[in-house]
């Protein structure tokens, strides 16, 4: 029997992660028109921060001398010991969780600036290639440089929610993840509905015209990437805590493409679209994962999800090329209200609008 509560918790947790990733791509691609094909890199940044630092920083507190043990070989044991220690110290556990996800966001944002610096002034395609390559570069380095996240073995992450018993633990964790995602969504929506959001869309539409009107395009794009990458780093850190381990090969370009599917599906340049796109993805993906044990198909069942999304993407691009929820003007203020008020004032004064 499928455990309904566990399935629901799992869906909520994964939705939180993909919601963060899709709004981060929406800021970059949907609003600013930056084709970030290196999403996996910034997602990984958060994961790598959590994977490489959490155990190491907390181990001395749990009574482990890192000079005495081989971290690479015993990282699972160390993480377990740290988890046990954290389960007796709720405050420290939550502080560690929050500190690490903030650090993950900072690392993501930093990498966003560094990885895009060489190409931010170039045409969009070059930026896309640069970011894609940077993502693969980081993954291959992490895979082969053991001290970071123990190379191909991967690294265990201590559990900051170990103080809660059984399913309660997962429910609380998923709840916290979802609240973080909703908060970030609200912040991004606020940015999108500001003159800054309008400026991003203007730059996407016509870079040269934006420059003529005094906009420092390279620096504004950099800002969009900084926001997007920080959110992706945050998502990566939360994800690492949720799955409890960090493996370099978890951060292949396919992750980037999945996020792209969500944004294109839901509607680029519309935060509600990004939220819908990621919901559709997570729901179907998790459900396919559950039912795949009960159905038989003449091919590897693991491809079912890819096939379903490939088809869905093609259909949406054919019949709703702007996504399920297309972009709308950013109503910074209620324009029609202001304009009708101005018109009334103009009619009221005998001079007319010229006065």
């Amino acid at each position, binding site marked *: 029997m499928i455990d309904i509560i566990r399935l629901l918790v799992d869906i909520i947790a994964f939705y939180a992660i993909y919601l963060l990733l899709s709004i981060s791509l929406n800021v970059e691609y949907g609003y600013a028109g930056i084709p970030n094909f290196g999403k996996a890199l910034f997602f990984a940044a958060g994961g790598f921060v959590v994977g490489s630092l959490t155990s190491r920083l907390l181990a001395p507190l749990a009574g482990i001398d890192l000079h005495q043990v081989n971290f690479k070989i015993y990282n699972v044991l160390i993480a377990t010991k740290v988890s046990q220690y954290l389960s007796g110290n709720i405050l420290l556990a939550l502080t560690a969780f929050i500190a690490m996800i903030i650090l993950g966001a900072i690392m993501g944002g930093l990498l966003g600036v560094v990885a895009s610096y060489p190409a931010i002034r170039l045409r969009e395609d070059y930026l896309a290639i640069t970011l894609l390559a940077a993502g693969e570069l980081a993954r291959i380095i992490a895979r082969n440089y053991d001290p970071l996240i123990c190379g191909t073995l991967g690294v265990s992450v201590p559990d900051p929610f170990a103080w809660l018993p059984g399913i309660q633990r997962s429910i609380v964790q998923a709840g916290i993840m979802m609240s973080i995602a909703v908060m970030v969504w609200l912040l991004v929506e606020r940015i999108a509905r500001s003159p800054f959001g309008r400026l991003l869309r203007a730059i996407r539409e016509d870079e040269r015209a934006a*420059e003529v009107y005094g906009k420092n395009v390279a620096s504004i794009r950099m*800002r969009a990437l900084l926001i997007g990458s920080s959110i992706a780093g945050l998502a990566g850190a939360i994800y690492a805590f949720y799955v409890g381990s960090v493996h370099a090969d978890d951060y292949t370009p396919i992750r980037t493409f999945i996020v792209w599917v969500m944004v294109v599906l839901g509607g680029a340049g519309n935060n509600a679209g990004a939220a819908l796109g990621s919901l559709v993805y997570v729901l179907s993906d998790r459900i396919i994962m559950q039912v795949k044990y009960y159905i038989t198909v003449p091919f590897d069942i693991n491809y079912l999800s890819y096939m379903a999304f490939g088809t869905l993407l093609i259909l949406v691009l054919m019949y709703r090329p702007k996504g399920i929820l297309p972009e709308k003007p950013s109503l910074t203020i209620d324009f029609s209200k202001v304009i009708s008020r*101005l018109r009334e004032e103009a009619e009221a004064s005998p001079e007319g609008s010229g006065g």
Partner: protein
Amino acid sequence: MDAPLKTRDLVKTFGGIRALDGVSIDVYNEKITLIIGPNGSGKTTLINVITGFYHPERGEVKFNGSNITGLPPFKIFEKGIVRTFQIPHLFKSLTVLENMLVASRNNPGEKLRKALFKNSWRRAEEHLVEKALRILELLNLDHLWDKPACTLSGGQMKLLEIGRALMADPLMVLMDEPIAGVNPRLANEIFEHLLSLRKELNLTFLIVEHRLDIALPYADYVYAMDRGKIISKGSPSEVLEDKIVARAYLGG
């Protein structure tokens, strides 16, 4: 006469072609200065060099006494120069009003730090909407304020480009063929608009155009270009009667 914009001996080459070959012009304050010349004579290149899109190999551009040669376009804007393009470069999927608002100078809400705090930019935004509406009324575009710019007709797009330029409170407007591809009636209307704007807002215009029949009567001063060089200058009638200009146009 006072000339806020001066270029001296500008040279710009593309491969073996000297698109600008020592161009020196003065653009006089609150006048409409016209640059004419056949296709390929370097008029658009000159605008692109002045506004920072191209870097000249030699020479300098001075605006109100300061050297602006080679500054990036957004810095040139800060000095008070705005340009328009031959083919309108509108923010296509943004509405007419949004196009106007983006063009404004120093909108506090465009700073990321302030974007999150609506109270810090709400009033400024309201004032900008009011200003935008007044300019749109002037150009008879106000009824289209919430339409995406890509749905406008060609002539309306040209007008919106002008409106957007005005939104930026420029000291000087550089226009690249403002009436190219526009029917003669609308073309005259556009120039009438420019004349009244110049009077109302004390603007200075530098206009590149090769439809002489329409543009010349509105000009105060004219430069004629051919093959990257200024071949004639003076009042519209002086330049029109210059034999060198006629030869350049007729390809003699």
